[in-house]
């Protein structure tokens, strides 16, 4: 039994500000997550499957602390500490990393500047410039990112594939304990999926963990998946191992929806 890294208990989340009591209107409370339980141990790889709109991205955003969502019930513990009240940057500093489905474009901030600032923030130590540069260059080479991208503005003018590789670059440079990968493989061609997949493989070791949302199981081929969770309408409706992926690959989510009804 591995050490527990992330423990989510009975997690309910709503769209921020949709609480009728708060905004004093008749507007419906938009609850998106209806009681999620999820445990991820050190060294594990978990996969979340589910149709569009089932709450997969919301779950990751809530773990990261996105201000658009509000946790109304339950807890999120990282290494035994409840983090649900912590601001986003402190969650990051405690070791959570989110690879965005649609990474933001940030004009005027270079990739290198972002990574240097982030690395300093996450490690709490001054970054040694030469060592950092070398590490950055090596990692970029591994991900087949041209070195010139270090001086480009974050995601500005990047193709979909370049944005995703840039997310993996950050993952490898920041070395979090828990990587949340939100469709990191979507919109990528076969070669790019391969590169991203290798990046994740390189990142993963017995001391960290990955939670992966994907529609394309190719990315999982080189990873040992420990557990699969199927999310439907804000609830986990099925859990299993690799065999569940195979079943959904061949049958879709239909059989689960039928079970629900």
């Amino acid at each position, binding site marked *: 039994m591995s050490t527990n890294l992330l423990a989510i208990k009975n997690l309910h989340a709503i769209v921020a500000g949709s609480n009728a009591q708060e905004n004093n209107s008749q507007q419906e409370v938009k609850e998106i997550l209806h009681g999620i339980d999820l445990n991820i141990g050190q060294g594990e790889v978990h996969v979340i499957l589910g149709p569009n709109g089932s709450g997969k991205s919301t779950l990751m955003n809530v773990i990261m*602390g996105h201000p658009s969502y509000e946790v109304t019930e339950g807890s999120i513990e990282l290494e035994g500490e409840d983090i649900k009240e912590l601001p*986003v940057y402190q969650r990051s500093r405690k070791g959570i990393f989110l690879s965005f489905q649609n990474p933001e474009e*940030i004009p005027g*901030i270079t990739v290198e500047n972002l990574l240097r*600032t982030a690395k300093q*923030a*996450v490690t709490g130590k001054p970054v040694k410039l030469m060592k950092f540069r070398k590490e950055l260059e090596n990692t970029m080479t591994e991900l087949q990112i041209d070195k010139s991208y270090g001086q480009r503005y974050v995601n500005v003018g990047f193709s979909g594939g370049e944005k995703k590789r840039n997310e993996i670059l950050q993952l490898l440079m920041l070395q979090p304990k828990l990587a949340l990968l939100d469709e990191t493989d979507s919109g990528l061609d076969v070669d790019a999926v391969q590169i991203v997949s290798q990046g994740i493989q390189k990142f993963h070791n017995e001391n960290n963990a990955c939670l992966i949302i994907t529609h394309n199981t190719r990315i999982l081929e080189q990873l040992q998946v420990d557990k699969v969770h199927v999310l439907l309408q804000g609830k986990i409706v099925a859990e299993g191992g690799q065999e569940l992926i195979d079943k959904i690959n061949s049958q879709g989510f239909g059989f689960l929806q039928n079970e629900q009804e």
Partner: protein
Amino acid sequence: MEKKKTYVEDIERTLYDIRNEDRSSYKVEQGLTEQIIRDIAAKKHDPQWMLDFRLGSLQEYYRQSLPEWGPDLSELNMDQIVTYVQPDAKMAGRWEDVPEDIKDTFDRLGIPEAEQTSLAGVGAQYDSEVVYHSIQEDLVKQGVIYTDMETALREHEAIVREHFMQLVPPKDHKFAALHGAVWSGGSFVYVPEGVKVEIPLQSYFRLNAAGAGQFEHTLIILEKNSSLHFIEGCSAPKYNVTNLHAGCVELFVGEGARLRYSTIENWSRNMMNLNTKRAIVEKNGIIEWVSGSFGSHVSMLYPCSVLHGENARCEFTGVTFASKGQNLDTGASVIHAAPYTSANISTRTISKSGGQATYRSAVKVTEKAHHAKCSVNCESLMLDDISRSDTLPAMDIQGDEADIGHEATIGRISDEAVFYLMSRGISEDEAKAMIVRGFVEPIAKELPLEYAVEMNNLVNIELEGAMG
């Protein structure tokens, strides 16, 4: 996560608000009379034509009324402004000769460091007189003249007389007239034909005495196929009495010449900055403006480029940051007066804590200027709900086949971008500051390194404690 709005407390400006003991040896009476003008001219040993010019300008000043557009200038009372203050320091050629307290002020503003970083020369204006001035010997050998305006008037009278306020005539507006009457100090640069000045020339201006206006005149003349980068920076200590700055910059860019004129103005928050800057560019010549407007209470500043010769070009890059109690009305204007002239205007404005930033531009294409090309791009960022940002572009196109484009955006800091940076461990304050710095980065990268650093520091000072 708790969401907080951007707000700001009064800004700590101690670095820039260093006030020295008033060491003026000579002050004119308050208010503006013909006698005062005669006193100034006598004290400065002006030639007769300059005295006449001053007196003519004074008449123009009386005739003109305050502009009826733009920010409110009613709190300006010329009767209370001491127009001329002369520190008792003499011109010094070496840094060691500059009086200690003046030096200390410059030290804190980082000027010696600027010089140490291979700048060609420093002409720093303290109050109305240039107290320190140096220029590299090889420039002198190449025939480059870089001196203060008083010396230029004595030693290069013919060139000064030919150009002085020809580009910005006193009748242009009330403050140009005022400038013509009371101008004092400033820089003079003359670059002979074919000479390329490789390192930037730099001068700093600073106001010190309470209630003193500053009316420095910058005159730069580039002969055919020459090139120069001139850097001007301003920072003033804070006083209670309303301060007025009505400087004048005239840039003559000869055929095939290239001038880059960079400036960051960081006046104290009680300054009325009513500066007039104009360039005339001959055939195939290029004027590049890099302009940063930070401090001041009210600013009206619209550097103008007259593209006088065929294929003349203008590049204008500007940033304006308006905070609490500030009304910064800035922009640029271009007059296409010859065929195939082109201009590229790119500006960024930021407003916060109730600050008001207006971008105002005027593009004129005369009948003669067929195939003129002009592109205007201005982006505004408002950091809160109480600040204001306006964009007022004016275009007057008379030439044929003109290609004119205007693009304006007004926006706020994106919550998603802040979330993205925070998810990388960066605090909310720093994330927002990074985004603002990124917003002005296209301007910062045009600046010489130490200026880019200064601008970053200014942005940081502005944002300190501003983000929750």
